[in-house]
């Protein structure tokens, strides 16, 4: 199993003192979690196969508390990790034994909405979905829509540069963030960007978004809102083979008439989701595409006709269009619950997130199924097909001895295939702990060293969310932390 960095014994020894200090710092008891039972609840996230009970947890209520905790951790060399809703599929919110978890989920207020400028200012703990809900009456929405949007926080989205189904048209998190309140490891509160496009100076937002919470902690976010389309309608196209469906996606994308979303599900996923929502997915199909188009009624008609023709040309065996808003919502509810729904057919799964060039979809799918066969794992594929963002879910039973090692190996092979096809190891979930050791598939030691140099600049003592993103050094020391055997570059 994946190596987790060993804790700093010297920090663990000071646990009692640190708890006392933090309690004094916060001025109250109820924001600090110290009991072993309760801390266990913070030992993992959406990737539950890796678990480490943290040393302590703080639930911050405002930016000042976040700054105070970070300053304390900096001054006293205590590792710390920010946590949103804990829905990461990459172990982004996995703590270490010597870590103080800094929970931001209490900070869930929408601070300000400006309809005229199409912006909203929200606290980091607001869920992605609640932003859109709050501005729905104004005819606006927040575009990036990770499938966990009902629960995941905007702070977590910023950390991971999250994507989602509709990012095919609208772009990912980094394209929609205008400003953040950023707390440095030293505890300084810095306003970066604002409400205007393209911040002055270096693109610090571009750097912070997707840095997996390793450079600082974001406590407030100004997001760009988009006008809601006049209407949108998903179409369901069933296929007899996953490869046909993959070829259909590649063909649609190649025309340049990009739908808002193209989602792919194979048979295990179709069945599980249909059981949960009853959205009307074709349960006899081997693969399903959910293709959404939007615009005026007339535009929708034209685009639907085009999509339908493309699907038929590529062997679609069934085609149906959402009849009304309720059925459209159901179709999306099914898709967005797909990972969880896999829980109905398998007790455990590991979700990969490689992205590939769309034209390689049929080829890569075939290879993924072959890899699964070789390892004896059933693999469900549910993914954002339009932008080539694969989510093969390797289904397994954690009660089989030694199974996780084989699952990890199987996942690694899949990622190799993605990289060989010209893609990358993670499209939207982040590297986290899970893909940490696969980074060398894409980057040379020098490439990684440049990223680490940035990390060192922001967090010289390597206290923030360590043990992630970069492979551990051979000596098992968290990546990038100053390693006495290697020295600084």
């Amino acid at each position, binding site marked *: 199993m994946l190596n987790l960095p060993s804790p700093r014994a010297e920090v663990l020894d000071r646990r009692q003192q640190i708890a006392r200090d933090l309690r004094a710092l916060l001025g109250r008891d109820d924001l600090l979690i110290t009991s072993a039972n309760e801390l266990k609840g913070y030992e993992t996230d*959406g990737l539950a196969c890796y678990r480490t009970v943290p040393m302590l947890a703080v639930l911050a209520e405002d930016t000042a508390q976040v700054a105070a905790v970070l300053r304390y951790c900096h001054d006293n060399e205590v590792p710390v990790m920010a946590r949103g809703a*804990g829905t990461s599929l990459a172990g982004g919110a996995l703590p270490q034994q010597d870590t103080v978890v800094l929970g931001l*989920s209490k900070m*869930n207020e929408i601070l300000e909405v400006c309809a005229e400028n199409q912006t909203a200012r929200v606290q980091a703990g607001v869920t992605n979905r609640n932003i859109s809900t709050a501005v729905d009456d104004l005819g606006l929405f927040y575009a990036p829509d990770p499938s966990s949007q009902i629960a995941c926080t905007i702070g977590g989205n910023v950390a991971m540069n999250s994507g989602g189904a509709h990012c095919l048209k609208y772009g990912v998190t980094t394209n929609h963030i205008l400003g953040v309140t950023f707390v440095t490891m030293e505890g300084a509160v810095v306003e970066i960007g604002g409400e205007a496009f393209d911040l002055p100076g270096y693109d610090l937002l571009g750097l912070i978004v997707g840095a997996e919470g390793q450079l600082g902690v974001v406590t407030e976010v100004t997001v760009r809102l988009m006008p809601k389309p006049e209407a949108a309608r998903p179409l369901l196209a069933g296929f007899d083979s996953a490869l046909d469906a993959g070829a259909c996606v590649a063909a649609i994308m190649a025309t340049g008439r990009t739908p808002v979303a193209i989602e792919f599900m194979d048979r295990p996923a179709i069945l599980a989701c249909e059981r949960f929502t009853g959205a009307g997915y074709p349960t006899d199909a081997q693969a399903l595409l959910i293709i959404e188009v939007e615009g005026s009624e007339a535009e929708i008609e034209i685009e639907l006709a085009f999509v339908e023709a493309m699907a038929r040309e590529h062997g679609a065996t069934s085609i149906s269009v959402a009849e009304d808003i309720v059925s459209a919502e159901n179709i999306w509810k099914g898709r967005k619950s797909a990972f969880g729904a*896999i829980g*109905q057919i398998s007790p455990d799964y590991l979700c990969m997130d490689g992205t590939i060039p769309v034209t390689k979809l049929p080829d890569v799918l075939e290879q993924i199924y072959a890899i699964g066969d070789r390892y004896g794992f059933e693999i469900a594929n549910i993914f954002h097909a339009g932008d080539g963002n694969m989510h093969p879910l390797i289904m397994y039973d954690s009660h089989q001895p030694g199974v996780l090692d084989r699952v990890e190996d199987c996942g690694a092979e899949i990622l190799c295939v993605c990289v060989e096809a010209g893609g990358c190891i993670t499209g939207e979930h982040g590297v986290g702990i899970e893909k940490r050791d696969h980074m060398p598939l894409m980057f040379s030691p020098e490439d990684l060293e440049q990223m680490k140099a940035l990390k060192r600049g922001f967090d010289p003592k390597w206290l923030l969310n360590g043990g992630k993103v970069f492979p551990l050094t051979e000596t098992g020391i968290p990546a990038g932390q100053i390693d006495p055997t290697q020295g600084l570059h």
Partner: protein
Amino acid sequence: MQTFFKDGVERDPATQRSEAIFRSCVHCGLCTGTCPTYQLLGDELDSPRGRIYLLKDMLENDRKPTKDVVEHLDRCLSCLACTTTCPSGVDYMHLIDHGRQVIERDYQRPLPERLYRSFLARVLPRPGLFRWLLRLAPLGAWMRPVLPKALKAALALSPDRLPAPAGTDRPGVHAPAQMNAGGTRGRVALFPGCAQQVLEPEINASTIRLLTRLGYEVEVLAASCCGALTHHMGKATQAEATATQMIDTVLNAHDRAPLDALVITASGCGTTVKDYGAMFQDHPAMKARAKQVAGLAQDITELVTPTDLEASKHQDAMLEGMQVTYHSACSMQHGQKITTAPKTLLRALGAQVREPAEGHLCCGSAGTYNLLQPEIAGQLRDRKLRNIARTEPSLIATGNIGCMKQLEKGVEVPLVHTVQLLDWATGGPRPHQLDGR
């Protein structure tokens, strides 16, 4: 997800069932997004996923419940919003029920808490005693300053006006008002409910009028409690005793003349009765009978159809164009998964039905929750009231007495039970809540 029960240790059937539930959870966290207490408190441990984790750890290690674990489980409303959200189909309801039973069995609460809980468990299910105590409530007002927090909450919820007991709640058979050519529409039993008949006797009266008007024979049962109140407090023995009485009463009525349905007008009770099969799954003698009663149970809005109503619609079209905000009780939408029927019925009568934002969130009533966790319940009530106010209703309808009592002191427009509107619009009296409006 993975569980870590010790090998070779004998586990009781309930724990085995809970383990299977743990295994079905993939720890995705979607449930946190719709959990009311997580919205308010922002602590993983006050979310369904956190509670599942706490329970799992406790059961795996065969540990007695500790204060911290109890605190987080107590905060759960059992609103079951998480079960609506959960794509993996995690049976949270039975997990939390099991947890509450383990706490009741293995954890000693501080004395005042124990007394208060057993007081509630004794009083609420007994309409006579409850009514008598409510008459004393005004006397308690001058004692307020010295009362413990929880009792203050109880007092605050006591009604300003206590209706007289209704004759209709006495056991007996009400004949259909009209006969079709083929005889009655059917024969149903009405479960009058415990707290409901004391606090709002008009609900049952409306139900009887409506059903007899539609051609049903209605037998009012002698049972007054379904066991839900004690069940949710983890008092399994008490709950099962009460439920056994209820089952016997229903099946006796069924033996006298077959029943088409057991009609329930409080969705909180409905959730429990429909789950009797699970409550008695380890009781071979009762299991089949429990299941039979569960199978008969129907919410009033499930039994009545839009066609029924349209056929009997009163010529004055009372509800036509009226802005009715429908508040769906958690036990209705999450417990029984009845989401469209009540709205469809109201719309069939011409009402303009709206739903508040965050409709999935509990109002804080949740059985005895508002009496046991007044602070959280109060925050949820205020939030619900704000969301309801934004819909600018002229009337609020809901299908659960608990929600009615929780919300009615904070709303400026009449708050009624759905069945009162169905009755009114088909020829019954105007709901008294509309008096003076």
